[in-house]
């Protein structure tokens, strides 16, 4: 995936917050991490396959999930509801990504998990981690992909 393709996931995540929470998160300086993956309390993960393969996931602390539920008017605040929330966010992002990429990449149905159940077979190469500060909490949008050699200059037609 070209960097502009990867940016699609970031933009759709930002858009979700803007539309649903009426308040865009503040992107913090990103990192590229080469150690063990980090998962906060609730994670929605999107698997991507094709010329590049891997996972894009949004992981957030309990505090942020509950605050978002409040904003969207959801009365439930339990773990299952928080998990549903990150699933819905991931689903929205993946739908938009699917529409963007067409047949260039396969975007799987999102998966959700909690920190205690997170055992992810993520690629070991490295992860792009973008912290997103929203109100007083910070979520992480994580891009973890591997590229096939011929994808170096590949970019989807938009």
């Amino acid at each position: 995936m070209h960097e502009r393709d990867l940016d699609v996931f970031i933009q759709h995540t930002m858009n979700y917050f803007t539309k649903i929470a009426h308040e865009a998160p503040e992107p913090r300086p990103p990192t590229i991490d080469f150690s063990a993956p980090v998962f906060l309390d609730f994670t929605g993960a999107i698997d991507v396959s094709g010329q590049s393969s891997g996972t894009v996931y949004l992981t957030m602390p309990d505090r942020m999930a509950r605050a978002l539920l409040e904003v969207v008017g959801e009365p439930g605040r339990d773990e299952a509801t928080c998990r549903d929330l990150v699933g819905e966010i991931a689903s929205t992002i993946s739908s938009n990504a699917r529409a963007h990429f067409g047949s260039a990449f396969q975007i799987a149905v999102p998966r959700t998990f909690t920190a205690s159940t997170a055992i992810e077979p993520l690629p070991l190469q490295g992860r792009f981690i973008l912290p997103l500060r929203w109100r007083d909490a910070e979520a992480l949008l994580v891009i973890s992909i591997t590229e096939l050699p011929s994808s170096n200059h590949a970019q989807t037609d938009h």
Partner: protein
Amino acid sequence: MPKPTIKIDRPHQLVADFREKGRHVRLNAGEWKMLLELDGEKPFRAVCAQFAIEAEAMPGLLTRFKRLGLVVESRLNLDEFLKQRGLSELPASIVTAPSAETLDAVEIIEVVIGGSGPTTAPVAMNQTEVMEFTLGANPSAAAPADPPMDEVSSDGLRLKPLIDFIVKHAGGGTVGQLAVYRVFLKVPLNLLHGAKIRSLQLVDETFEIHSPPLAQIILAAVRETLGVEYVPSMAGAA
């Protein structure tokens, strides 16, 4: 010759390649538990006390762990310390004096105590030996200014100007930072770990790659990803 001092009153933590080294070492379960309690903050003595180890046995135990190459004395810079706490920046409530030199470690510790860190996969990691450097400006910011012309010293490849070059060449902002990610996806993980690079994050203008093979691979990755040659002395012309 002076005898090496075993500093059991100082905090220790696991070495960067602890996971790998641990595969080749056999310890009893209690020793593993104890090792995994080393967090870079608590003195070694305090961790021993948790496991009811007698004071006389502590130096020997620490010596043994060090000889096995499993632990090092903890030394964190501010950025590593914040990262350990799951923070990317100082809390907004912190007020610093105009001169950054006046902020000392004690003040920072007082601020971050009690902060909750992220949950990580159950892999013991050492973050004190992590070399971190910037990916450029805030994602929403414009491309960084031209780097100086003498990025490469006689014995190393400076990464900050290289990263700035990539970000700028790819258009700046988040897209530019993602280009840096794509470049480093092409660099073998073992070489990065060998250079003690576990994370690329913060400004460290003094950091240089001293491994010629790694420097060559990074430059080749830039060429392959961006289709341009990074010539360190000409980076400002990108």
